[in-house]
């Protein structure tokens, strides 16, 4: 079985620094327009970002969220900025905050891309607890605050490729999933990790829809080595601010070399198990959505071409239709996990 090593990203595809700085200035201009005088408060952080001693990307001041609880504010005071090199960073131009937070698939809030943003107002993310079960020495129900205590938050700028053939570049705030998993001391029987999203019909209108054919809760899973890979990330924020509900608050998975649906949102349960778990999309349509769901331009999906993607935001005048890369361009760091596997069979 031959797995192609993805060629390095061509320099031409990396946005020149001047361009993304322009974008920052553009965003800053936008916040000035929105805010007038208050925009001055956005200036220092942008200046810091350029000095390299602070985060690479901050949400426009007007759009920054207030902390869900006081401890969140403390936790967010010390965040390590993204490094300047791949794979934890990409110089490609960022998808603006406004777009990242309005264009979401989160069917618990509704089917339209804007539903998660417009219909999640009632959703509560604090207090939040996560149930840890299965093959671990320390099972139990933990407060999110306690789970986050031992981890250090950092910024990572990742590409996100949706199976629907669009993609974004997002500056996440979070920590490696491995740091979380180690806290619970998995046993040798733990071969897979299974995740579940919260079901709260009162605050999640999509769950109440009669025509939705998903059987809640949403479930996803990873093989243990995938879960422990340094790229695999648990996000609790984006653009330097707390994760909005539509993006999977308070804590969601980010697996940048897999299609977006693997990156499960608003996690309330993590189960360690010996056998491969069932996953939501795989259960719904096994021929379309595999368990692995690695981004792969040559493995066809019945509905969407996977050899190209629309890099958002697109405009009708600057259509950005780019080529999709094997493992979403992260092959160097993840391909070895699939050395013995036929990627067309295990899609």
């Amino acid at each position, binding site marked *: 079985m031959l797995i192609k090593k993805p060629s390095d990203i061509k320099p031409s595809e990396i946005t020149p620094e001047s361009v993304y700085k322009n974008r920052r200035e553009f965003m800053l201009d936008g916040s000035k327009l929105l805010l007038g005088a208050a925009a001055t408060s956005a200036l220092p952080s942008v200046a810091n970002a350029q000095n390299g001693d602070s985060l690479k990307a901050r949400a426009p001041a007007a759009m920054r969220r207030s902390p869900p609880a006081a401890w969140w504010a403390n936790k967010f005071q010390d965040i390590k900025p993204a490094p300047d090199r791949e794979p934890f960073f990409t110089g490609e131009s960022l998808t603006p905050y406004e777009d990242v937070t309005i264009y979401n698939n989160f*069917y618990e809030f509704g*089917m339209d891309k804007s539903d998660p943003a417009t219909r999640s107002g009632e959703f509560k993310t604090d207090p939040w607890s996560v149930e840890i079960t299965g093959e671990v020495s320390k099972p139990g129900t933990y407060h999110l605050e306690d789970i986050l205590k031992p981890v250090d938050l950092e910024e990572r700028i990742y590409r996100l490729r949706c199976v629907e053939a669009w993609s974004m570049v997002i500056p996440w705030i979070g920590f490696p999933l491995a740091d979380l998993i180690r806290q619970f001391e998995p046993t040798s029987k733990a071969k897979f990790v299974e995740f579940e999203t919260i079901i709260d019909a009162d605050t999640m209108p999509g769950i109440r829809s009669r*025509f*939705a054919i998903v059987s809640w809760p949403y479930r996803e899973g990873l093989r243990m080595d995938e879960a422990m890979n340094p790229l695999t990330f648990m996000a609790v924020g984006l653009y330097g601010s707390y994760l909005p509900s539509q993006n999977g608050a308070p804590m969601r998975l980010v697996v940048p070399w897999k299609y977006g649906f693997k990156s499960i949102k608003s996690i309330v349960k993590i189960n360690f198990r010996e056998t491969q778990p069932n996953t939501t999309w795989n259960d719904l349509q096994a021929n379309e959505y595999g368990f692995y769901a690695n981004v792969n331009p040559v493995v066809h999906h019945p*509905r969407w*071409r996977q*050899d190209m993607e*629309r890099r958002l*935001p697109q405009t009708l005048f600057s259509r950005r239709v780019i080529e999709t890369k094997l493992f979403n361009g992260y092959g160097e760091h993840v391909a070895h996990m699939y050395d013995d596997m036929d990627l067309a069979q295990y899609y």
Partner: protein
Amino acid sequence: MRKFLKPAVFLLALVPFALLLIRALQNNLGPDPAQELSIETGEWSLRFLLITLALTPLRDFTGRSEFVRQRRMLGLFALFYATVHLLGWMTFILGFRWFAIVEELVERPYITVGFTSYLILFALGATSPKVMVRKLGKKWKRLHRLVYLASILGVVHLLWILRTDIGEAVLYGSIVFVLLGYRIARKLNTKKSVFS
């Protein structure tokens, strides 16, 4: 009054397109305008098709002939929105890569189905002028019954691309079902019908 009806319907039918155009020019179609354009134009095409199909029953129930007089124009609007839908998909989703367009038409069943529906609408549009109606005579009527097939294929096309919430497609499908059922029932029961 009557002579203003047709221009009024014409302008009304252009409103969804005008709104889309304004949003596109203002760059106000959201982060994924290609998707938004596809959804909007596809659904408007289907809606116009359903309106077209509903005109004969409306005439039967109200006894007024104004409805059927708008049929050709509204049918052409269904074709118009389907054309924008097809061109938008080719341009903004596939970036005008011909190999990709051909591959998609052949390999992806929901696209094959949608394109077949488009070809039917195109044939109906091309044979819609009065000259063609006269030329084709009886064949014209038989040909234009294909509008039901085009609608069914349109609904199937929509149903196939949806990921989970099938509410809207079910609604459109039910409308086609009722309208087609009405026509069949009328044909079977009242052979006296001189229109059709």
